[in-house]
């Protein structure tokens, strides 16, 4: 599946900003199942200095430094990407979850996955969330069967509602109010899986804006989307699942990158001097071509 991505973030300031630096994680990363045909980040006004690196997690990260006063700032990603996620393994044939839950010990084959089995700054351990997710993992259940069960329950138990949470809302509160957006569901599921010792990572990206013919419009379209990478053990590796839409990621998603939680991946993070109050306007379009 081939997509054209356009993701625009626009800040408008009450007073001119004298000096700004922005760290952007907007460039899709190259993956065996994701070919980046083109990608370009355009800043307006043009940055005085641009730097690009590959971060700790292998994501592409850029810095934009602006040293002239400016009343607004827009940063836009234009990319064209071809995705073909591998088919997931048959759920029933995956190993019992307890076998995967040894990942924290590290060592060959699982040391990299281990990083995603510990709590992280925005995904704290929470006893209620732990109990909620653990219900889907009775002893000996194949790991992917358990994961699919969690997806179904989140879709059934939670309502998708923006404005009821912020990025900083703890997972325990999301569980209590049974509502939130894609980041909340992803953080909640990650927290519960890690509590069992299962590596789980936060994936940032996009989901197609217009549904494929004959299917319903997905939740979380026309904005940044987030979902969960689950580790199935060293033999099977990672599989991406979308708790917001109760599905295993196949060909409707485009990956920007992954990390422990939102904090590792905020698409545009900046520090500005001056500016006063600011307003933010984000638009995302992921169109099949």
């Amino acid at each position, binding site marked *: 599946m081939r997509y054209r991505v356009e993701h625009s973030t626009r800040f408008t300031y009450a007073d001119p900003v004298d000096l700004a630096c922005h*760290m952007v994680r907007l460039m899709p990363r190259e993956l065996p199942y994701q070919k980046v045909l083109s990608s370009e980040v355009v800043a307006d006004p043009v940055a005085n200095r641009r730097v690009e*690196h590959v971060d700790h997690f292998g994501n592409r990260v850029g810095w934009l*430094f602006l040293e002239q006063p400016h009343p607004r700032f827009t940063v836009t990603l234009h990319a064209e990407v071809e995705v073909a996620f591998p088919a997931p393994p048959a759920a029933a044939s995956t190993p019992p979850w307890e076998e995967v839950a040894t990942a*924290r010990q590290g060592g060959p084959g699982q040391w990299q996955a281990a990083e995603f089995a*510990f709590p992280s700054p925005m995904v704290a351990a929470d006893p209620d969330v732990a109990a909620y997710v653990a219900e889907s993992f009775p002893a000996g259940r194949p790991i992917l069967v358990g994961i699919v069960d969690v997806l179904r329950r989140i879709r059934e138990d939670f309502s998708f509602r923006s404005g009821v949470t912020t990025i900083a809302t703890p997972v325990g509160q999301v569980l209590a109010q049974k509502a939130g957006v894609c980041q909340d569901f992803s953080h909640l599921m990650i927290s519960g899986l890690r509590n069992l010792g299962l590596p789980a990572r936060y994936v940032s990206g996009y989901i197609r804006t217009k549904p494929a013919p004959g299917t319903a419009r997905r939740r979380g379209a026309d904005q940044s989307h987030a979902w969960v990478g689950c580790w199935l053990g060293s033999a099977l590796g990672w599989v991406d699942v979308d708790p917001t839409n109760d599905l295993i990621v196949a060909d409707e998603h485009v990956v920007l990158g992954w990390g422990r939680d939102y904090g590792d991946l905020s698409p545009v*993070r900046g*520090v500005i001097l001056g500016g006063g109050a600011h307003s933010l306007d984000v638009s995302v379009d992921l169109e099949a071509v």
Partner: protein
Amino acid sequence: MSIPPSPTGIDEMVDGQGGLRPHWRQIVSAISLSDGGGLADLSQRLNDAFDNEGVTGILPGSGRHSWRCDPLPLPIPAGEFAALTEGLAQRAELLEAVLEDIYGAQNLLADGVLPPAIVYANDAYLRPSHMQGPRRPGHRYLDFYAADLVRGADGAWRVLADRTVGAAGIAYARENRRMLQRVIPEVFRGTQLLQLRPFFDIWQTALQRLGQERAEARRFQQSQFQGQTQFQFAGQAPAQTGPGIALLTPGTSSQHWFEHMMLSRELSCALVEGGDLTVRGGAVFLKTLKGLQRVDVLLNRANARSLDPLELDAGSGIGVPGLMDAARGATIRISNDPGVGAMEAPALAAWLPALSMRLLGEPLKIASVPTLWLGEARARETVWRDPAQWLIRGATDGRSAAIEPARLNAAEREALLADIAREPWRFAATPAVAPSVAPCAGPNGMVPKPVVLRIYMVFDGREWRAMDGGLARVIESDEKLCGALPGEGLSKDVWILNDERSDIVGPPALPAFAVAIRRTAGDLPSRVADNLFWLGRYVERLEGSARLARATLHRLARGVIMPHELIELEALSRSLEQADLIPAEATGILGGGGALLSALMGSLQERGRNSGSIAWLIGNVARLTEAVRDRLTGDMYGAFTSGLRQIRYSARHVNGNVELLSQTMVEILRFSASVAGLAAENMVRGGGWMFLELGRRMERARAICSQVGFALEQPPARVEPALRLVLELCDSLITYRSRYLTVLQPAPVLDLVLADDGNPRGLAFQLVAIADLLDQIAGQGDRTLSAVATGLLEDIQAMVTRVADAADQSAAASGLPEPLHGHASRILALSDQVTRHYFALLPAAQTLGSGEAAPSFRGAA
């Protein structure tokens, strides 16, 4: 584990058979011969000396405790010390190699040598420091290092903790030596001990070398790209040749502020806060009065996570956005590298022997205290069997004190075990061994107390060098063994006793570049200038307030208020109210001025003090004195602190007594006079002095305008008593009498206090001084500000001339209040212009997109 826990450690001084260890003989005999009258007395003399010099940077009277020094040093024979430092040098190199791996290829994790928790569940592991791509050649993580050691029952020193982040306490070690030498020189008689000084020379040279490398690279780049605009921008100071070296401190709020200040002096680097630095074009600059100056090396004493709000913790108000990017681009060297905190993880000790074999190919020379990582089931079982025998520490958190299960009750112990069971990888355990004890001064002679020895190392470019001394921290019975150095405590000087074999280390050669001679202080950081300016203003305002209060008390104290005094008191209470010394409702003087009096008493209250009150002014003077301490001589700092302490002491003992209140005001006036005298005699007429003086002159000019204005708010018939008050407030009565005897007339009085530029208490004198200072500060630059001051002077002189020429001088004088209050506002406006022009406090920085509340930020850039 191999070492059985023992209730008390071995004794450093005696050998167990009642004999004195040989290297203690000299000290014991010197102490017993000292003429001080016993140990307790020596100890008191040392405490007093530390207190007087404010070693921990105590704000006068703030009650903050300080580090104290025990009169008995901890001696270590040179041979034994050399073996220790050889082991620590190896250990530092080992940690360097581990850092290179975990921030690079991560083979130690891939091969399962280190468990992932030690790195990935370690808050001090900075992922922004682990960027993929080739390393820069010559990059190092560790330039300095310290270790805490304890001596076990078998006599061997073992490492209790590795200190890679701040290596705090080095200033206390140096102060201990300095104070001991001064207070009880007799103890040093006949002792051959190695000096601390060479260590600081080595360190300074090492920093200079790091800076030179960058300065050379910069000159090369500039020559390559000459003419291209990307390396130029407005505000960059021209022609900076030497390397820029700065010590980054969190500021006066840090419990180690004194140490940061002392280190910046010893190592000859600028003392800066995050708000003094700005990143432009990928390089770091210090904002000074003359523009931006390049910083090549940053000796970091701030929390690594707060260094850069863009990549690290967004909420920190002290970071420099873009600093990590600059460090990656190698335009600046942060020393130590921000990522080194990961090596303070206590659990790491469990793998060091294996890591040493793997990374260095040799056995570890100096062992750690036995350490178990509780992420392993077998280790948990061992600890579970008898928790009371163990100290529980954070696996990766080397800053928190250990938990002692032996001191917990059953419920607390259960809770601890449950915590460990839930997240076992977060914990490590060390046997609860007792460290060795050393004799300390007690009320009735020597008392043995446990000691932890901290040794400091620095990398000189080729090898690790130790400070020939250290800090021996005495662990009191209520103190914890592990964790970061607390803000207070008892310590001992550490003596490395020279024997015949050791070399005397001379100071190393300094780098060979000539320093250009300068007579200006162009590199004064803007923040320091700002602080000095405000210190000048507050000292003057304090003096002015005391003067007003004294004049008021003088009139109230007599009990019966005469009619002319009523006029004066009205004017005084308006001035007091305008200066925020008393609330508006206290200005009434009917009924004997009781409300006025109690408002003045209230102005000394420290609790719930109002801004503008005398207590508030004293607090501000104390705060700013501390903030500019590195710019003051010891004598000046001493004058400030002892004066403020005396004032605070008197203020606390006023207890409603008018006489004592008056005396306190007199003390304030004396304090202000002595500070002014010291500033005039001791401070070089450079940037620092100019701003202190400018603040003082501006405040005084404003106060004269307001006070004369309030005094003259009278009908023409009542102008005469007002003139007397004007002379009194401007301390000009005697001068007036010597010129005009007792005839009080408006024009001569106003000439003396407003227009005569020879009267240091008059307005004209202040305005001339202000114009002159602003000229000097501007140098070749823009002189509009000094022109404003000159304009003010011309206006005021014209005003006085109009009164002198008037047919009815009294009527003319009583029309002056309005223009005088207008003048006061113009002086304040000039002060604001100075602030904007030289200190340029920019609007607060905000963080976008991190989901955290916007931090309040000091101006950078």
